[in-house]
């Protein structure tokens, strides 16, 4: 029951203490820069000198490299291979097997695209590792995100594992009454149908009760909400955000006018 849909790793680090919006700005800044920049090596340098050092700064390097190796590298690697082999770019042919003839240009192109994806996914991973979802949501609602919207996001993260647990309970209960879970696929699929009813209707009843419960605790109160967590937003936070914004604009400008 402790399972959560959250990557958050609790540490005490500079990165953890940054305002959630600042970290979100960092993520989007990195992604935009790596896609906008006209210089070939920018995404690679961003990973080496941006995201990776930050993971050490946030004391989540182990989790970060773990996720990179298991999740991001296979995805980016697949993208690289596909594009390198099938992107029809004219140029210096590297080798020729059957109908495959990758060129130097197509390999370069694929490598940069893979790195862009790597920047995107790995900076999001770093963000999720160092930002508690409820802090993110309180900060965003303090900045004007509607409370209902924040609630939907965060309760989904919490309630999905609960629903999963409930589905397991229902399956166990039905199995103890002779539900067939081991014969052919079609038969098993058929025998799952009676399980869906209780899960769906049960959830609908729950939604009504939960609506009453949060309403009884002033969810739609028209007063200005306050927050239990005091989420600091310092001058350095603002500085980082503005710097990132400027860097994004510079990348855009360079792409549009200089090259």
């Amino acid at each position, binding site marked *: *029951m*402790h399972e*959560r849909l959250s990557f958050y790793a609790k540490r005490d680090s500079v990165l953890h203490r940054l305002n959630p919006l600042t970290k979100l700005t960092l993520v989007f800044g990195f992604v935009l820069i790596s896609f906008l920049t006209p210089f070939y090596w920018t995404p690679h340098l961003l990973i080496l000198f941006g995201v990776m050092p930050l993971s050490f700064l946030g004391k989540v390097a182990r989790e970060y490299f773990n996720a990179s190796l298991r999740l991001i590298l296979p995805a980016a690697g697949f993208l690289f291979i596909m594009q390198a082999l099938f992107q029809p770019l004219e140029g210096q042919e590297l080798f020729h097997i059957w109908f495959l003839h990758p060129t130097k240009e197509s390999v370069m192109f694929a490598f940069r695209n893979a790195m862009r994806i790597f920047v995107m996914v790995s900076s999001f991973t770093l963000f999720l590792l160092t930002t*508690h*979802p*409820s802090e993110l*949501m309180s900060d965003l609602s303090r900045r004007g995100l509607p*409370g209902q919207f*924040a*609630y939907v996001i*965060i*309760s989904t993260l*919490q*309630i999905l594992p*609960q629903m999963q647990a409930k589905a397991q309970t229902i399956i166990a209960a039905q199995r103890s009454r002779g539900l067939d879970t081991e014969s052919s696929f079609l038969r098993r699929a058929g025998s799952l149908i009676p399980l869906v009813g209780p899960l769906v209707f049960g959830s609908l009843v*729950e939604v009504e*009760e*939960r*609506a*009453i*419960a*949060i*309403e*009884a*605790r*002033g*969810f*739609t*109160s*028209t*007063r*200005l*909400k*306050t*927050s*239990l967590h*005091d989420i600091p937003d310092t001058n350095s936070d603002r500085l980082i955000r503005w710097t990132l914004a400027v860097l994004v604009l510079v990348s855009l400008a360079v792409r549009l006018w200089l090259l």
Partner: protein
Amino acid sequence: MAIVNLQNVTYKYPLTSSPALRDVSLQIDEGEFVALVGANGAGKSTLCYTLAGFVPHFFKGELTGTVEVAGIETHASMLNEWVMNVGLAFQNPFNQISGAKYTVFEEVAFGLENIGVPRDEMISRVEAAMKLTDISDLAERSPYSLSGGQQQRVALTSILVMQPKILVLDEPTSQMDPIGTREVFGVIRKMAEQGMTVILVEHKVEWIAQFADRVIALKDGQVLLEGIPGEVLTAPILEESGFGISRYTSVARKAQELSLWKKDKLPVTLDEAVEGFDSLLPQGEGTGMRAK
């Protein structure tokens, strides 16, 4: 002074043909501890929802008659105005957990955040409420990792912390063990003594007899009986309506048929039963036993 005033209230849920409440009139005074009893489907929960403003604002349907709670009349108000006056906790604790919070402490603070209580005051109120219901040691746990009884305490605490004038509780101890039930009843009693009005739905008859000031028995959406616990809970008509009576009452009633019970009043609790049977024994042979 009556803080709850219902006059000829009849209510029908949408898409149903027969009313869930029929011509209910009742007054409840400030600081009173009232227990609602009745068989399943007697209208207890509907009455709770009415007192908390959810009927008709949340459930819609037709409501006739007047409902006035803490000076607010139901038809002339919005649901979110009721929250400040009436706290509602109900049976299933799992569904009362907001789902938006990761620790019990945050969960209890959820309501205070919504009504805009300043941060320092919020923390001290949450701490005080958690101490009152004895869940301080759960503060950092995830609300979903708790047992049913613990979750019920969290649900109750989350309402108490909002300091409503009226506390409406629909079977708040249904998943608790006897010790937990006793503690929670102690807390509710204390709130009533501090001037909070308590309206409680409960099946545990012996507890009602010990703690409530008044009992209202419902049947088919109507008020069947109303009075002090000792009278209402031993009334034969209550048993006929499908609501269980205490085993001490049934034993004494049997004894009465055999002319072994000499008192006029039948007992509801163990203490009363012991006292009644004790007086039957010849002087000196009484056990003198009292339930602790």
